């Protein structure tokens, strides 16, 4: 499959923007008074949301994996980097006329669960809703390798298969569920083997290779959108940092992270595009400069948004006696 040049460039710019957001998030986390609750970064895993978003249509439902990947929702229409940073810092986006943090059904996100995987059935519900409403919206539900073992994922895949719902499950296998290696929690090598048991197609793909990801996701989304039912994509990647900033990572073999960083998606994609003659050094400098300006402004704007007020929260939460 030939990926159109425009698409390749769009994904390149988005990957640069995503990477710079990864960096910005750490900067904001360490900024006095930002009040960011914690930071679980998706550094090095950015190719996945970039390739997913390049395949989504307006109205599709997409849940990125865990708390780690939600900030990359800014890649979708209707969201901005500012929204992502503000959401991480508990700011009141309603006040600036924005959407409601990471929940906005019209923009394709209906929330996320801190108890991992418990949001999967909700996204199956969104897929059911699309089917009943006879809309062509599809749903992509993404979770990590740790979450993929949880019961709600099983139930979700069972129902989605039985009803041939327009949903694609994606497992981002970043090799660790918090501190536990995927090798300890699976008896299979290829996580996409599970798809067969549910009765829909499954495939693993290099999750650090933008073009390979794009092609697999494109094939799966087209199939699902045309009534082919669910699918499972496993994106093989690596969490180069700890589960969260405070993680001391005693469980990680020395040198493993450095070895994987050699395969990180941005440098690889950049090189491929240069080899293909699609971008030059100048394009790289420009893309980085633009993204950095966007991120700096987003950071400033986000921290200028007031915190959610006590009265507003109580009112919105509908205290029913």
């Amino acid at each position: 499959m030939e990926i159109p040049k425009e698409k390749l460039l769009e994904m390149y710019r988005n990957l640069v923007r995503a990477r710079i957001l990864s960096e910005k998030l750490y900067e904001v986390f360490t900024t006095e008074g930002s009040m960011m609750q914690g930071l679980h970064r998706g550094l090095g895993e950015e190719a996945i949301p970039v390739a997913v978003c390049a395949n989504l249509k307006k109205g599709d439902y997409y849940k990125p994996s865990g708390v780690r990947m939600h900030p990359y929702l800014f890649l979708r229409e209707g969201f901005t980097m500012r929204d992502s940073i503000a959401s991480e810092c508990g700011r009141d986006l309603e006040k600036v006329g924005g959407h409601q943090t990471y929940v906005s059904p019209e923009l394709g996100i209906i929330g996320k669960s801190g108890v991992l995987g418990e949001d999967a059935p909700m996204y199956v519900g969104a897929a059911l809703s699309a089917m009943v409403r006879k809309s062509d919206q599809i749903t992509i539900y993404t979770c990590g390798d740790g979450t993929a073992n949880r019961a709600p994922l099983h139930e979700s895949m069972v129902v989605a298969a039985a009803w041939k719902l327009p949903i694609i499950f994606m497992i981002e296998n970043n090799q660790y569920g918090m501190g536990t290696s995927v090798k300890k929690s699976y008896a299979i090598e290829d996580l996409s083997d599970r798809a067969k048991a549910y009765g829909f197609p499954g495939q693993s793909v290099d999750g650090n290779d933008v073009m390979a990801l794009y092609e697999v996701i494109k094939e799966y989304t087209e199939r699902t959108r045309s009534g082919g039912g669910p699918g499972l994509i496993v994106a093989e990647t690596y969490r180069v940092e700890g589960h969260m900033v405070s993680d001391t990572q005693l469980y990680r073999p020395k040198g493993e992270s450095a070895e994987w960083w050699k395969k990180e998606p941005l440098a690889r994609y950049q090189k491929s595009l240069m080899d293909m003659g699609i971008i030059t050094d100048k394009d790289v400098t420009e893309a980085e400069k633009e993204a950095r300006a966007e991120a700096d402004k987003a950071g400033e704007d986000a921290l200028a948004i007031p915190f959610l007020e006590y009265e507003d929260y109580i009112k919105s939460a509908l205290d029913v006696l």
Partner: protein
Amino acid sequence: MAEETRLFTYIDAINSAYREEMQRDERVIMFGEDVISMQGSARETTGIFEQFGPDRIKDTPIVEEAIVGMAMGAGMTGLRPIGFLMFASLMMCAFDQVWLKLGCNRQEWGYRGPLPVVLHCMVIGGTGIGMDHAVSPEALLVHCPGLKIVMPSTAYDAKGLMKTAIRDDEPVVYFSHRGLYFGEKEAIPSEEYLIPFGKADVKREGKDITIVSYSAMVRKVLAAAEELGKEGINAEVVDLRSLVPMDIDTVVKSVKKTGRLLIVHEAMKRGGVAGEIVFRFMEAAPDAVKTMKSPIKRLAAKNVALIRSRKMEPLLIPQIQDIVETVKGMV
């Protein structure tokens, strides 16, 4: 059949509410285990598949978590789903979905859009079926921030409250009681009616004591009140109908008249809803507490698991005679 009213059992009434609301609004859909194949757990869904077809009602695999989660997801994306969970005990399998997702997360996320979800399941105390089926978990849900809880005791209430639940834009947990399903038929108006949440119903007027109850226990309380009446004790029976929101004003008004308060429920006593009712009463009417003629009492299931035994269960759950004797000790 009369022109203005028809005779309905409790379960006919719920079925009729389902149909009327599905007819009225095509966004209303329902799914759950055996809702088509076995017509629900006890004929709740008879005829719905035939009338509305496969898009509007679906048999799910045995997936309680998915039933609740899907209802939430579908409710946020344009439908008005009814998730049917058969036994209330099965809700335990989906506790995260019910309690954290449906009840809490939407507030936490700042989601201010509609979340029109009804979870319908039944409680079934009285058949000796054991805790895995007969648990009455309403207190656990009353403790959840964002759920409305409905527990009707008559066919009339069951229909009007179900219709309100389906039209509500907030999540509602609706507990029907299996012990009432095939009881005596009631006359129900043929014209449409709805019963608002948070409006208790005085099922029997009296002046000597206020007995507050809900769900099937209201029937036992009414039977006890009849017996007490023969001995000259006139009990007022308040049926809360919905626990969240709770109509404490009707309780206060009644206790101000009678000077005595007894609460009766089928669920276990420790941590039960009776404690919440009493505290709400005391907060709402601190002065009335001072002039009461006897200490407040509660009757509820013993603080043990319901054993799977038809012989044992009546000893664990309050019976008519227990209510009669408790009242006699208070007046």
